[in-house]
């Protein structure tokens, strides 16, 4: 019998009596507060509690059925459970204002990553990798049934402004993956060339998660909105 049976999410292993007994030194404080560890009937409090949390249908042992001390111990636990349940279902504090403050602070210390050269004639315009990656992830998200996870841009060895994109995505299985992968590649290349003006020669694609349902297109209006 698990001592935490009242919880939906419990399902833990049983809690044997001996593991519940803390060493005497650490028990001292609890004993001071809550009375002796062994009930006057000779049973440990933990044993009485186990009886209280036994799975439905398990017979009550004869001692617990008649012992006043054990019953009192059980009533204490029941009262605590009741109050805990009430506290658990209390309204959570409204974290929205806090969330906005956190988001503002985070945006103020954006991690830029490497600076990448754009494919302009003079080759003197740069874009932060994190900003470029964000645009390319958004391009992936516009493909139905696809969501970007990781997106890294890598400079092709020996070049100044030629890049490859290493992409990890989640994809739905409602159409063959190769087709979807091609759509994703197309969207990424289009966003890189037309949206950013970045020269990308290859998109290395890894699908490492499955979306359970086909996804509609994420509204394209905001793609590139962060540049």
């Amino acid at each position, binding site marked *: 019998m698990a001592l*935490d049976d009242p*919880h*939906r*999410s*419990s399902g833990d292993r049983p809690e044997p009596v001996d*593991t*519940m007994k*803390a060493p005497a030194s650490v028990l001292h*404080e*609890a*004993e001071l*507060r*809550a009375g002796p560890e062994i009930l006057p009937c000779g049973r440990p*409090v933990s044993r009485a*509690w186990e009886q209280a949390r036994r799975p439905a249908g398990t017979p009550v042992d004869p001692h617990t059925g008649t012992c006043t001390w054990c019953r*009192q*111990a059980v009533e*204490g*636990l029941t*009262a*605590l459970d009741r*109050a805990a349940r*009430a*506290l*658990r279902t*209390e309204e*959570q*504090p409204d*974290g*929205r204002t*806090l*969330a906005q*403050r956190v*988001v503002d*602070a*985070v*945006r103020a210390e954006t*991690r*830029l990553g490497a600076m990448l050269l754009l494919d302009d004639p003079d080759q003197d315009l740069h874009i932060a*990798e994190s900003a470029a*990656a*964000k645009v390319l*992830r958004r391009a992936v*998200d516009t493909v139905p049934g696809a*969501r970007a*996870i*990781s997106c890294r841009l890598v400079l092709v060895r020996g070049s100044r402004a030629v890049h490859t994109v290493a992409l*990890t995505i989640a994809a739905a299985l409602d159409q063959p993956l190769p087709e979807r992968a091609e759509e994703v590649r197309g969207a990424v290349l289009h966003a890189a060339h037309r949206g950013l003006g970045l020269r990308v020669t290859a998109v290395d694609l890894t699908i490492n*998660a*499955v*979306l*359970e*349902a086909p*996804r*509609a*297109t*994420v*509204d394209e209006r*905001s793609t590139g909105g*962060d540049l």
Partner: protein
Amino acid sequence: MRYREDRSRRKWAAMRNRPGPPPPYEAEFRPAPRPATGSTAARGAAGGPGGSGAPDDLNDGMLAVRASEGDDDAFAVLVRRHSSRLLALAQHLLGDRADAEDAVQEAFLSAWRRLPEFHHAASFGTWMYRIVTNRCLNVLRRSPRPLPLDALPEPAAADAGSSPPRVCEGDAATAALKRALLELDPELRACWVLRELHELHYEEIAHVLGTSEQTVRGRLYRARRALTEAMRPWR
């Protein structure tokens, strides 16, 4: 497929504390607390104010990867998803709303900076629990403060002569429990709150507190012993 964790789904479901329909603004501001690989339609999911954010139908693991690469929109979704629950945790540990907000804000900023080193050994949610709990315990260690008596209502005295309506009695019991919690040793309090109010497993609590499951069981037992005693008038 490593993002499709049944455990996290169960936890999300279990932690949805809000009874009844959410207020109308919530839908656009805060995504429903559920794993993202569910079957919700994604149209219009480019959520977040202004529509420029990451799709909020992504699950925490995917968002954390995006955030670790510097995608602040993805992190914003995570912040909105977790802030209320973490604020509730900090409030139960610290007993004070302003202190709790500070702790959670600092925890999120620390998480943002440390995300590139986050290796998904635990879920993002458990990782945040760990950062927030540590921060709260540090605050309590730095300045062990007297119980803020004004912060919580007095429990109604267990007056034998009166029989208050059941609902009031319940409120008083809840208030008494809150007060008793703040009198507990912080380490015991953290264990009990994570288990009973946030319904974490022993294993997760051990991870959050950086200790063993055995220790967690011991602390939980001691916390229950002290709290049952404090709840004696409500038996």
